[in-house]
């Protein structure tokens, strides 16, 4: 794959023009998690311009982004950088690279699995399954116990009636050519 095609794929998946970035650093200056990152938003755009696909798809940064949209709101070239981050994350999962934050990927996959099968979120199923899958059994136990005691995490899930419609949406999206693994 050429450098050019990586940028083209990200532009196309995010509907953004990442080549417009002239590195004014406004995004990075306003990013609330930049101190946690290795690159930060403007360097991520630079790495896309340079075709550094592996560095980006295996980076922690794309999972540290909080999707707060501050960067895109301030960008003088109107690049919605949060959408670019989404495209990078989606590509990392689809291409099966060694993702830096595998527990985060498991969380989002389980979230969608619950929605696919119940039509709505059921926190007890999501959190329980995530604990088992990541073997991170004790994380946030104190808060979890309190929330259950306060009746804020229902044990019995609510299943919507037209679950078939939601399942069909998942199938149709999965079969959309634009949503398939990019051709190398």
């Amino acid at each position, binding site marked *: 794959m050429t450098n050019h095609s990586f940028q083209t794929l990200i532009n196309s*998946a*995010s509907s953004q023009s990442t080549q417009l970035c002239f590195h004014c650093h406004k995004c990075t200056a306003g990013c*609330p*998690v930049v101190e*946690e990152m290795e690159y930060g938003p403007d360097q991520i755009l630079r790495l896309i311009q340079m075709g550094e696909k592996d560095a980006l798809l295996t980076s922690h940064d794309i*999972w*540290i982004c*909080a*999707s*707060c*949209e*501050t960067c*895109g*709101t301030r960008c003088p070239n109107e690049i*919605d950088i949060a959408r670019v981050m*989404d*495209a990078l*994350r*989606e590509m990392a999962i689809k291409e099966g690279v060694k993702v830096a*934050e595998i*527990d*985060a*990927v498991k*969380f*989002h*996959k389980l*979230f*969608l699995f619950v*929605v696919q099968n119940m*039509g*709505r*979120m059921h*926190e007890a199923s999501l*959190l329980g399954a*995530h604990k088992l899958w990541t073997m991170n059994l004790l*994380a*946030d136990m104190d*808060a979890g116990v*309190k*929330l259950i005691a*306060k*009746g*804020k*995490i*229902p044990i019995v899930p*609510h299943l*919507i*009636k*037209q679950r078939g*419609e*939601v399942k*069909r*949406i*998942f199938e*149709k*999206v*999965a079969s*959309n050519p*634009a*949503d398939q693994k990019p051709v190398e």
Partner: protein
Amino acid sequence: MDFSYYPGCSLHSTGSEFDASVQAVFRTLNVGLRELEDWNCCGASSAHVISRGLSLALPARNLGIAEKSGLDVVMPCAACFNRHKSVDYEMRNDPQKRAYLEDVANFSFSGSIHVRPLIDIVANEIGLEKLNSMVKKPLKGLKAVGYYGCLLVRPPEVTGFENPDHPVLMNQILEALGAEALDYAYATECCGGGLTLTKSVIAARMVNRLIDRARETGAEAMVTSCPLCQMNLEMRQGKNGASMPIFYFTELIGLAFNLLESSKWWSKHLVSPTGLLKAKNLL
């Protein structure tokens, strides 16, 4: 005045006191909220991370249901509002995406209704004067900051929210209720709610930055309209000593209206607000 109502998953679980306070306040104001029939989860903070397609298609089904009602649909949750409003925006502005989503979600988009955040309805349809006229127990002496977070305001071309750098609706509502609303430079800074279960250490740092800055302004409480922010701000705030109660703005409206139901909301909080409310003679 009637609206369609999309509570979203959080208002049926971790944000149940938000739902209860919205219902109680709207009943008192005689504004009808008709819950959408058999709505589905919009995918909130996870779908867009994994699948752009699902992040658009899941809310699209709800928009189809809402259009049938012929009423504007009100969303209390900022994340749900943001996802549905984004899809509404794409369908209005991108014919190709609209055709794709009409096929996937199996409906024909007319654009006849609008997706609206709850705070817009309260401030602009019900109005501050009306709110003020219904106050039976002014929130005198309660020093609070309004906190909007991200998803209600950004990206502004999609959300259409009033001044995205310096929104004022929340403070105006607080003042209409008799509270002392303080200026807060971090009102639209991210609390890290989307990271709270995947990168909890980072989320905690973000939360405590917001809490510390709110305390520096003299605030005794923060007021929000987002169940993800509320949960994150309560769950991740520092455990050493002083704690900062986090209210939903509709809870404070209910309290100021002196609604009986309001007494049931406070025990739902992870950070109890009862000490503060008693100190202000509001309980």
